[in-house]
């Protein structure tokens, strides 16, 4: 793995956003990270965007109105423009809004959030390669770990 890291130059960066989830998927994500560490693939996890580019975006939750303000503020502080290679949507909430799909307090999932962000033109979030939906309420750690491992292996080449 050392040689692969040396070839890449950097360690893949994961940006993790909790957009108002119930913490069910977040706990499973932690379990998935533990399982990923056993594979020996190295990665960094950020909970705050400080750079304009990240390799993987992991998002949980149906994007509540309060978290929308915080995410857009975070995007503005990161320069107003964020680019990610892969986006992994965890759970029914991020994939389609879940049980709160038509609530007044949520935007109804990540896709509606992207549409909303495009409409208000506060900041820009672009996904370059793939958007992966992992459904389940909550998701299972093994599926998350396998998906992230596939992506990390693609990045490492």
């Amino acid at each position, binding site marked *: 793995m050392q040689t692969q890291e040396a070839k890449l130059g950097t360690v893949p960066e994961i940006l993790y956003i909790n957009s108002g989830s119930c913490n069910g998927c977040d706990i499973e994500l932690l379990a998935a990270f533990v399982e990923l560490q056993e594979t020996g693939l190295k990665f960094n996890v950020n909970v705050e965007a400080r750079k304009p580019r990240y390799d993987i975006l992991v998002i949980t939750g149906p994007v509540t109105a309060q978290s929308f303000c915080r995410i857009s503020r975070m995007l503005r502080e990161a320069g107003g423009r964020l680019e990610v290679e892969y986006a992994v949507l965890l759970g029914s909430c991020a*994939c389609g809004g879940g049980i709160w799909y038509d609530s007044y307090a949520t935007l109804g999932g990540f896709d509606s959030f992207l549409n909303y962000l495009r409409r208000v033109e506060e900041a820009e979030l672009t996904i370059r390669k793939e958007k992966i939906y992992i459904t389940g309420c909550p998701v299972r750690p093994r599926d998350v770990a396998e998906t992230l491992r596939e992506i990390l292996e693609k990045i490492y080449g």
Partner: protein
Amino acid sequence: MLFHSIRGVPAIDPEKCMGCGACASKCPTDSLTLHRTRDSILLELNVARCIRCAYCAEACPNNAITIEDKYTVIGRSREELAIRVIVPLARCDSCGEPLRHSAREVELAREKVPDLNVIKLCDKCKVKRVLAR
């Protein structure tokens, strides 16, 4: 393989579904929706929004919905995660126009009430038959 206490994704049997909409009315997230077209009923399951509560399988009167042994579905787009079942509507015996009920609903009603023979007529033909008497 899942534990018996974990519920998986619902699977709809297109041979058994009769398009009554009981599952769609029970679904808490509206991931099961019923659309009516002119000559068929479209039942759509949006797996991306499904929370695996299994209320649909409880509500189904014909046992068309079963809970699968599979929990996670991973897809690259929302179209990939949608399951569609098309149920044809019954047709009027005299004029051939589609009725409001599906063909399987009419079959089930005929099995339960064998001597009801006007059930497969549209509204116009029913009026015509009553006036002709």
